[in-house]
């Protein structure tokens, strides 16, 4: 794999110039998802459990958008980062499961 000595730049490598367009789309999408979540809660009318599942799903989608686009996690070389964020999320979920199902008074 990589050598141990300092590995200076490879000026010959061409990188696709990243356009800010994708990032602006992500921003607008995030705003829309946020407004949608707020609206569903403020204007109510729907079944309570449905609202809960819906807003949490919206949050997960928004989080993924920010993770993959703004944090560049969908680009090359991000396997370990994604494994650890994903692994952390799984453990966080087990913690939440413990709080919801296996805690009582």
């Amino acid at each position, binding site marked *: *794999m*990589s*050598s*141990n*000595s*300092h590995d200076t730049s490879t000026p010959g490598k061409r990188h696709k110039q990243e356009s800010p367009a994708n990032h602006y789309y992500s921003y607008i999408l995030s705003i829309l998802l946020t407004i949608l979540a707020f609206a569903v809660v403020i204007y109510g009318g729907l079944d309570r459990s449905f609202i809960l599942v819906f807003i949490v799903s919206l949050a997960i989608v928004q989080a993924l958008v920010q993770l993959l686009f703004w944090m560049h996690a969908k680009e090359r070389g991000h396997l*370990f980062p994604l494994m*650890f964020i994903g*692994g*952390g999320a*799984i*453990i966080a979920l*087990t*913690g939440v499961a*413990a*709080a919801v*199902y*296996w*805690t*009582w*008074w």
Partner: protein
Amino acid sequence: MAHSHTVKRYSGLMDWLTTVDHKKIGILYLLAGGFFFLVGGVEAILIRLQLLYPDQSLFVGDTFNQLTTMHGTTMIFFAAMPLIFGFMNAVVPLQIGARDVAFPFVNALGFWLFFAGGVLMNTSWFLGGAPDAGWTGYAPLSTIADNAGNFHGTDFYVLGLQIAGIGTLIGGINFLVTIINMRAPGMTYMRMPMFTWTAFITSAMIVLAFPAITVALVELMFDRIFGGAFFDAARGGNNVLWEHLFWIFGHPEVYILILPGFGIISEVVATFSKKRLFGYSSMVFASVLIGFLGFMVWIHHMFTTGMGPVANSIFAIATMAIAVPTGVKIFNWLFTLWGGQIRFTTANLFATAFIPTFVMGGTTGVMLAVPAADFQYHDTYFVVAHFHYVIVGGIVLSLFAGLFYWWPKMFGTMLSEKLGKWQFWFFFIGFHMTFFPQHFLGLMGMPRRVFTYLPGQGLEEGNFISTIGAGLMGIGTIILLINIIATSTKKVTAPADPWDARTLEWTIPSPAPEYNFKQTPLVRGLDALWKEKMEGKKEMTPAEPLGSIHMPSPSILPLVMSVGLFIAGFGFMYRHYLISGIGIGITLICMFLRSVYDDHGWHIEPEELKDKGVKA
């Protein structure tokens, strides 16, 4: 090539206080961990002395609770974890052909933070009493706090463990990045030695498990010090929550403890059977599976809290499932030994003794995994017997094996095999004498954490034998100390490869030179050194030309940062928040200095490399 800045080199004590060299940090971890092992050992002897006969009053009541709490906490967090980090530091960079870890400064910081936490917790003995709520610190016992300063011990537990835990977390991140980014050319993941693999998985577990105890300790601290209501039932708090948070950390923690031990056994058994490890791929897969499943079983510590049969069953099955990859490993070690040219050096004595002992501990674990049965075993000496079999019979035996195996590489001398064998037999026989009877004491109803027992209940013989056994373990430990002292005075130098071994750390001189590898080696297969040996070569082929070697600069900042948090800890414990502010301020200023003043390091030039036989 002229240096454009002055090279800061220290000697003597300052060298050790400012070092960022993983080899020295490894030795610091072994020294500190060894010291706390002795402290925990003394606590154990005192416990066993009190339990030698029924109705004794040597150490009773709260004193006894302090002894059991500190024995457990010290042994797990300040002895076993640091000793493991000691070997990881000493060995992993060498096994992957690297010159240091990814973050040498952070490596030093991790050590000093652990040390600060360990010292802080142990000052409690002199400051009104040690923590006494068990190493598991269950609420609401652990939330008892008052303004008069009684029940103060648990504050030391909270802050000491928190500070040490931060050190462990950053250490875990360090080893992960090192192994991901800094392997020598040709060393793919499936060509890494097993000790490096287990270090890798352990580090991943540390990164994902330690935040849970961080949160648990923060919540306990907020309840105790700031009047929070996390665990105060009267204000809506919940104590089962503490158990969940603690064990979501605590169960992976015990796999964090044992996996490196498994790694050491794999190295030692293969080397001293003169055979490659049987079933390498399945070993890797099994270790990864153990790491993952370790996070899915924590409720087996809570079977009796009343969660009901569904929850209990799910976790019972998950717990039993872990026995499967563990069994794969056991068989692989046995198949490695089978048909090999076995040499029973002290290291291999400890390694082969580990195998049946750990299996015994593992099988009682499967017994405990049955919830209905666990209602009988829970909180009895049966559990105590189980975990000592896996921790002492598991991790401690493998740490002793590792010590004898890697001592020449770390110090350039050899520990006495004769004294080693005496140590082994005293410790091994003493161990079984101490803990085997405890299974039966538990089955006969003796509860845990009790400071005495009545006569005429059938508990006398077991306790008596158990205490004698503890004495034998103590003698074994003393023999080890004598061995270490004798070796330091004798100066018998060790060759680069005293065991005719298989992995990269044995290709460089003993002790390892400051820069590890003159030239980064080219790895052509699993058991990189053995592959070269089998082709008649004496050395590794280098992967780069000789050049000047960049070394990181030493720094006093890690020590100062740890002292800052130590001071902050005292501020919080004694409710003097100005002191806390000052302590945290010191730490933050050091972080600022580290960020602003870039470390350019220094260089070792090819002319300075003392060894002969340099390849161009």
